[in-house]
């Protein structure tokens, strides 16, 4: 099976992200592989282990984004591709989807493309379905269980109401959610291999596409309004606390 895993680099989730001078800052917090994409890589690797084949990790990003690819390689991906082009300073999700779809076509004869649920930076969760639509692949999103038997993919999708069981034939796009199972840690051997790997860079010209014009753009970013919270600590015996707290909550008219 020819498998692709799409990963992106994001600021660590523990970072104190804020707006300074109109720009997003995250202090000295490290950039890491998007935590959701670790699940995508894990699912891609387990598919390869069961079916044979290769897993290629791809990212669109700056040169430093290659670190996210190194993490994917260290987990066990066979190779990686960095898509980097000066024309890509301003992209929306649809542009990302178009570029990833072009890369999947260039890799050729890809059976499965794995995505994370969403980027923890933009919280969009659009790229997987957009790429599926562009490629004409089946879209199997929010997958918590993925099986491939007798040429058919069988996926349990985690929806609001419970799990929907969906089947399709490859080629398909999948996005993976957390209850799929924990992603593996990179092994010592994996880290060594990844540190030595040379990662090819593809430009838009090599993909044969022009820079997609962003349709969605940001006009302003803001720090959220400061929440004036002065915590009212309620004390007494448990029964007194319960009585006072219940009164206060009822007075808030939130029930």
């Amino acid at each position, binding site marked *: 099976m020819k498998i692709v895993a799409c990963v992106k680099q994001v600021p660590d989730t523990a970072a104190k992200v804020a707006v300074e001078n109109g720009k997003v800052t995250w202090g000295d917090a490290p950039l890491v592989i998007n935590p959701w994409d670790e699940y995508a890589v894990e699912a891609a690797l387990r598919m390869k282990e069961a079916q044979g084949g290769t897993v290629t990790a791809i990212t669109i990003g700056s040169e430093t984004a290659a670190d996210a690819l190194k993490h994917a390689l260290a987990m066990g991906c066979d190779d990686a591709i960095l898509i980097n082009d000066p024309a890509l300073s301003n992209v929306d999700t649809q542009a990302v989807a178009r570029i990833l779809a072009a890369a999947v076509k260039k890799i050729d004869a890809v059976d499965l493309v794995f995505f994370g649920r969403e980027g923890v930076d933009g919280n969009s969760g*659009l790229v997987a379905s957009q790429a599926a639509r562009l490629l004409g692949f089946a879209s199997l*999103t929010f997958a918590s269980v993925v099986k491939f038997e007798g040429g058919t993919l069988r996926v349990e999708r985690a929806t609001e109401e419970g799990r929907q069981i969906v089947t399709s034939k490859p080629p398909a796009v999948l996005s993976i959610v957390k209850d799929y199972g924990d992603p593996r840690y990179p092994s010592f051997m994996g880290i060594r291999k990844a540190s030595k790997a040379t990662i090819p860079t593809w430009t838009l010209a090599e993909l044969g596409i022009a820079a997609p014009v962003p349709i969605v753009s940001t006009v302003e970013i803001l720090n959220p309004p400061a929440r004036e919270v002065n915590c009212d600590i309620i004390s007494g015996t448990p029964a007194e606390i319960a009585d006072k707290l219940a009164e206060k909550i009822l007075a808030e008219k939130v029930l």
Partner: protein
Amino acid sequence: MNIWVYIDHFKGVALPTSWEAIGAAKSLGATVTGLVLGSGVEALAQQAFEHGADVVFMSDDPALADFRPEVFSSTIAAADSSYPEAIFLPTSTRGREIAAMLAIDLNSGVLVDVTSVELAGDHLVVTRPIYSGKIFSKEVCSSRPQIVTLRGRAFPKPAPTTGKTGELKKISAKAEALTTVEGYTASEGGVSLTDAGVIVSGGRGVSNNPSLQPPAGLDEKAAEIWRAQQGFKLVGDLASVLGAAMGASRAAVDAGYIPYSHQVGQTGKVVSPDLYIACGISGAIQHLAGMRTSKVIVGINKDAEAPIFKVARYGVVGDLYAILPALTEAFKKKLGK
């Protein structure tokens, strides 16, 4: 201005955000067309009128009995020869995916999971939380239709007008599918987290009651889970008196106390209830990311220094095993239950 609103539902029961989306479109002065797709969904079309839709495009077809994104998107893309200024959808698993695919079909953009929408001249300016609410982003879409998914509970729900009707137009289903829905596993039931007005959540602290004596023969891990179950029972008792959904921290989920579907936070669900009661949850930044926009937050924690008290309106420094049963009793009395 015309706005289409996708009426998201599961087996004929609408998500409340579908009505909130009609309300949001109406408040911009738009003429609203509800999009009702499914099998046996005539009642839903009627509800859409009652919640304010002027027109309903309905595709009532057995091929639409189960949600499949490619089928639903194609059906909407072919609904009419002219497109509206905007298409609103609830930010649900379905709404997000239809929005994503429609953007490709109609070559337009998606403003996803917005918490406010304003009209600026001829276009919409939305606000959406990014970085899990650490930053707010104002965004615009340069193409038409502007596809917008609306966060649940961020917009007021319009009061329905019983018996109101409107123009019903039947549209045909575009049924070419790439996927087959085989069925559903039993849903977990209870109140859905993202729609809940009240949430009571438990964290790692729920297992911390050394005086509880687990049944003999349990190993250490099993004993911890047994203790956590006793703690979550107290959380559940309070939730049931309040008609609340039950949430959890990641530590509680990872320790196996409760399924992942209950996880609130950066890598769980983002919720915004009117009341959020955090029990035995320290208030890590990733947890706060999922609940900090709740209207009233209550923290119950043994540790007076716990960060949850920095966002909580009310705090109790104490043992949840003592406080929760008392609080449940107090509410039972005051609410007459």
